[in-house]
C-alpha cells in the first residue's frame, strides 16, 4: 500500500498593510476596524497591488527553489460567500508568479526532497463568526483579515507518511520565519494547511486501486495535520473495504500512471444509472475525537469562472528585480544551522532552537556572543531564559528590552564578578524592569561582589582568631563548623563575598590553623 499526500499551505506575509489597500494587517484588532472601502469591496473601489507583498512572496519562492515567472497576472475566482465581500477572490490562476521548486526535509527514514508545484499570491478572506450555541442566531462577519496577503504553496503529491507531512510543514515554517517572510503562527492563522490524501492499494494483477482524494481543510496545528492524515488513511481503507462490490466498483477499463505505478479509479452509479468516477471531496477534522469528517460528495466540481482581473495590471518581473530579491534573501536556515555549529561550536540542539526562532533571534545570539565571547553561555541564556520570557511577555526578540548587545555585556559582567545563577537572574530581571545596562543594574541592586582576596583573607583570619570553638570542631572532623567562619565573613560583607573564593580561603585557613 502507498499513501499519497500533497499539501496546500497558506501563509500570511509579514507586510504592515494589506495586499490591495493600505489597511493594517495587525492580528487581534477589534472586529471590522482594520477596513476601508477597498477591502470591504465597496462599489466603485479598485485594488492597487502592494509591491512589498510581491517582493516577500518572491523571496519565499526563491527560498523554495522555485522559478520566477517574468510575466504574471491576477485572476478573479468567483464564488458566493459572505466572508468575501466582492464575492470573488483576487488570486492567480493559470500564470502564477512562481513554479516548480523543492524543499529538503528530514524524517526518521532519512532525508527527502519534496517537489513544489507552484506558489502564488492571493488575498485572504474575512472571518465568519457563527452562533456557537447552535441556536440558529445570525452569523457575523469580521473583515479585518480580508485582503491580507496570502502566499499559497502547493506541493506535489509526493509525501508518503504523516510524519513527512509534519516535517514538510516544520521545514516551511522554519524557512519562512528564517527569511522573515511570515511569522507562521498556526494558532493565529498566519500558517494554514489543507492536506490532500489518498491511498493506492495493490491488486493481484500488479495495478493499484486509488481511493478518492480527500482534501482535509483548515488544519490548525502541525500535530493535527499528522493526526488527521493518520486517521484519514485508516478511514479510506475501511471505506474501500466496505464499498467495493457494493456502492463502488473498480474501473477495469483503464489505468493511469502515477510514478512507477499503474493506478485504477473507483466508480459509483449516479442517479441516471451510469457508472462515473467517485469525485474528490473535502473533509473537516474534529480535534476532540481525532476524526476526519467527510463533507457531502458533490457530483459536479465547483466552477469558479476564473478570468483575468481587469482592475489590475499584469506584473512584469525583470532579471534585476529577481537579482535584488535574491540579494536580500541572505543566509537560508539550513546554511545558518551549519554555520552556527561550526563557527560557535554549538550543539545541533542549541543551533536548531536558535534557527527555528528566526533570523532576528540568531542575530540576538550572535550580538551577545560577540560582546561576551562565550557562545555556549549566550546560547544557554537565549534558548532558556530569553525564550520563555518572550513567550510570557508575548513579545518578539526585536521588541524585547534587552538587546543581544546588552545580554553580552550582562554575561561578561556576571562572569567577571562570578555571580551565581540566582544573583544573575536578579540582575537580569532588574535590567528587564528598568531597561538599564548590566553594570547599572548590579549597582542598583547593591551587588558589589567582594572578590578581593586580600580583603577576604583578612576577614577569614579575623573570624578564625575570634572563633576558637569552630576551629576546634572543624579539627574534630565537623566540616559544618566551617559555616560559622563563612557566616561571619558574609555578615561582614553584607552577603557580597564571592562564595567560591570565600569557600577556598576558609578551607585553606582552617587547615593552617593550629
Amino acid at each position: 500500500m502507498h499513501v499519497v499526500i500533497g499539501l496546500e499551505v497558506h501563509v500570511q506575509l509579514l507586510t504592515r498593510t494589506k495586499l490591495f489597500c493600505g489597511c493594517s494587517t495587525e492580528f487581534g484588532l477589534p472586529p471590522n476596524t482594520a477596513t476601508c472601502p477597498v477591502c470591504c469591496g465597496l462599489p466603485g473601489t479598485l485594488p492597487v497591488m502592494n509591491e512589498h507583498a510581491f517582493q516577500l512572496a518572491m523571496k519565499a519562492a526563491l527560498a523554495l527553489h522555485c522559478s520566477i515567472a517574468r510575466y504574471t497576472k491576477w485572476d478573479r475566482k468567483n464564488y458566493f460567500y459572505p466572508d468575501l465581500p466582492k464575492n470573488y477572490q483576487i488570486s492567480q490562476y493559470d500564470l502564477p508568479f512562481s513554479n516548480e521548486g523543492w524543499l529538503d526535509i528530514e524524517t526518521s527514514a532519512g532525508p527527502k526532497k519534496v517537489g513544489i508545484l507552484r506558489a502564488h499570491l492571493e488575498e485572504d478572506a474575512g472571518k465568519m463568526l457563527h452562533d456557537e450555541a447552535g441556536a440558529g442566531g445570525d452569523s457575523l462577519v469580521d473583515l479585518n483579515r480580508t485582503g491580507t496577503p496570502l502566499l499559497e504553496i502547493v506541493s506535489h503529491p509526493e509525501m508518503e507518511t504523516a510524519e513527512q507531512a509534519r516535517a514538510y510543514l516544520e521545514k516551511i515554517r522554519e524557512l519562512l520565519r528564517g527569511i522573515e517572510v511570515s511569522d507562521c503562527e498556526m494558532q493565529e492563522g498566519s500558517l494554514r494547511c489543507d492536506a490532500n490524501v489518498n491511498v493506492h492499494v495493490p491488486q493481484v494483477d500488479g495495478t493499484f486501486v486509488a481511493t478518492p482524494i480527500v482534501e482535509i481543510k483548515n488544519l490548525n496545528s502541525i500535530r493535527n495535520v499528522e493526526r488527521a492524515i493518520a486517521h484519514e488513511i485508516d478511514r479510506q481503507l475501511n471505506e474501500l473495504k466496505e464499498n467495493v462490490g457494493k456502492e463502488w466498483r473498480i474501473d477495469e477499463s483503464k489505468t493511469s500512471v502515477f510514478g512507477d505505478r499503474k493506478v485504477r479509479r473507483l466508480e459509483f452509479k449516479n442517479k441516471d444509472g451510469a457508472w462515473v468516477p467517485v469525485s474528490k471531496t473535502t473533509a473537516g477534522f474534529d480535534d476532540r475525537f481525532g476524526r476526519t469528517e467527510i463533507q457531502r460528495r458533490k457530483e459536479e466540481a465547483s466552477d469558479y469562472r476564473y478570468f483575468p482581473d481587469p482592475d489590475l495590471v499584469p506584473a512584469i518581473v525583470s532579471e534585476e528585480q529577481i537579482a535584488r530579491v535574491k540579494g536580500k534573501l541572505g543566509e537560508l536556515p539550513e546554511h545558518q544551522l551549519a554555520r552556527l555549529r561550526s563557527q560557535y561550536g554549538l550543539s545541533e540542539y542549541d543551533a536548531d532552537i536558535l534557527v527555528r526562532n528566526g533570523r532576528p533571534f540568531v542575530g540576538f545570539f550572535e550580538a551577545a556572543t560577540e560582546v561576551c565571547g562565550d557562545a555556549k553561555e549566550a546560547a544557554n541564556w537565549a534558548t532558556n531564559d530569553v525564550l520563555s520570557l518572550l513567550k510570557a511577555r508575548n513579545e518578539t526578540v526585536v521588541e524585547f528590552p534587552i538587546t543581544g548587545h546588552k545580554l553580552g555585556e550582562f554575561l561578561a559582567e556576571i562572569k567577571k564578578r562570578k555571580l551565581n545563577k540566582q544573583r544573575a537572574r536578579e540582575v537580569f530581571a532588574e535590567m528587564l524592569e528598568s531597561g538599564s545596562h548590566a553594570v547599572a543594574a548590579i549597582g542598583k541592586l547593591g551587588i558589589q561582589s567582594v572578590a578581593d582576596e586580600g580583603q577576604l583573607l583578612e576577614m577569614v583570619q579575623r573570624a578564625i582568631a575570634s572563633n576558637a570553638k569552630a576551629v576546634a570542631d572543624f579539627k574534630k572532623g565537623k566540616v559544618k563548623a566551617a559555616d560559622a567562619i563563612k557566616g561571619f565573613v558574609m555578615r561582614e560583607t553584607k552577603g557580597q563575598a564571592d562564595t567560591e573564593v570565600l569557600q577556598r580561603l576558609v578551607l585553606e585557613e582552617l587547615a593552617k590553623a593550629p
Partner: protein
Amino acid sequence: MIQLTAHELRRLQETGQANAESIARAFLDAVRRHDGQVKAFLHLDEDEVLRQAKAIDAKRAAKQPLGPLAGIPVAIKDVLCVQGQPATCGSKILQNFRPPYDATVVAKLREADAVLFGSTNMDEFAMGSSTENSAYQTTRNPWNLDCVPGGSSGGSAAAVAACEVPLSLGTDTGGSVRQPASLCGIVGMKPTYGRVSRYGLIAYGSSLDQVGPFARDVGDVALLLESIAGHDPRDSTSGPRPSVAYSQTVDQPLKPLTIGVAKEYFAEGLDPEVEKAVRTAIDVYKSLGATIKDVTLPHSRFAVATYYLVATAEASSNLARYDGVHFGHRAADYRGLRDMHCKSRGEGFGTEVKRRIMLGAYALSSGYVDAYYLKALKVRRLIKNDFDQAFADCDVILGPTSPTPAFRVGEKSADPLAMYLSDIYTISANLAGIPGISVPCGFSSSGLPLGLQLLAAPYEEEKLLRVARMYEQATEWRRRRPPLVAKDA
C-alpha cells in the same frame, strides 16, 4: 443665462455680472421648469447646491485662488460616488447606498471649485442605450419628449441639452456618452481608457468603462476633461500621464489634417439622413483643407458580439457583490444564505441586468470559456490592431455616432438585439481603448439631432478636440436649442 457655456459663465463671474449663487439659482429654476417633463435628475439637493455656490462666492470675495470650474454647475451620472450622497446606478438594488467616499473625478471637480449639481438618471448599471432600463424613471429627449435621450448616460445628456446644467459627466462602456450626446444634440466624449480615473465609478465592464464629459460645445468639453484627467494612484489601470491643458489648445486648427473614412462605418442599417449629414460633414472638413483617406477596419463587424461577451463577463463578476449581505437591497423573507442571495438579487436587479449577468456567467463557465470569453479577447486584440494600422495613415477616423436619430420610447425595449445595434459604431472604441467624441452635425427631417463621431489613437485627446472644434466653428449646429428651451427664452 442657462444657455451660456461654462466659459461664458466663468467670464460673467470674473466681471462681476453674476456669481456662483445666481448661476446655481438660474439652473435650479431651469430644472424646476423642465425636469418634470425631461426627468433627467434622480437626486438634486438644492440646499447643498446653494451651499457649495455660496462657498465659492465667499472664496472669490476673500480673493482666494479659484479653480478652472469655479461656480460652474456639473451634474453627475448616478454611477459615480459622491460622499454621503445616493449612488443608485439606476437600480433598486442600490436604492439606499450612500458611498462614504468621493470618486476621484468628483474629488477633482471639488478641487476645480465646480458646484456638484445632483445626480442624473441612467440605464441600470449603465446597461442600455435608451435610459429606459432605469428602475426609477424614463428620461425623455428634450428635442422630442416622445423619444429616448439615448443611453446609458441619458440623464446627463438630456440635462445638458435641456439647459438644466452647462456641464455633466457620464460614463462610456460601449458608447454610453457618445450615443446620448448624438441623440440629444450636444458634445460628448469618451477619453482613452486610462486617461480618467475609474476610482469611484461603480463598475459595469471594468476593462471598457471610462468617465466622459458632456457639454454644449467642444471648448467646454476640453475644459471639463482637463479638470478630471490624469494618473490616479488609486487606479492601477489609469495611465501614468498627467492631465493636459486641452482648453488652451482646442482653438488651434490641426494642419495638416488627414481624416480617415472607413467603409465599415457606413453599413447596412445606417439611416439615410444620418449618412447624408455625415457625408456633408466630410465636405466641410475638405473645405477646411483636410485630406480624406479611405481606411479599413475589417474586424469591426465582430465588435458588437465581442463586446457582449467581454462586458457581460466582467459584469457578472462586478455585480456579484450585490447579494444582500454587505451591499444593496436585502429581501425581507428568506430561508438561509442561498435563498437570501437569490431573493435579494431577484428582487433588486432589472431584466436587462439579469440577462447580462447570465450571458457573462455563461461566457466564463467551465467548458465554454475558451469558445466565448477567451475567443472574444483574441478578437478584441484584432480590433485594436485594425485601429493601430488605420491611425498610421490618418489623424482621426470620421463616421456616424449612432446609426439612427433618437427612437421613440418603447420602440426597441422588446427587442434587446435591435437595442444593442444602436451602439454598433461606438463599441469598437471601447474595445480598442481609444478616445472618441460625438459632435452635432445636423438634424433629421423630424427635427431630431444627428451626431458625428471622431476617433483618435490612444492619448490623442488634444488632437481629437482640435479637429472637433474646427468643424464646430465652421458650422452653427451648436446654437440650436430644443423647443422647450427656445420657448423659455
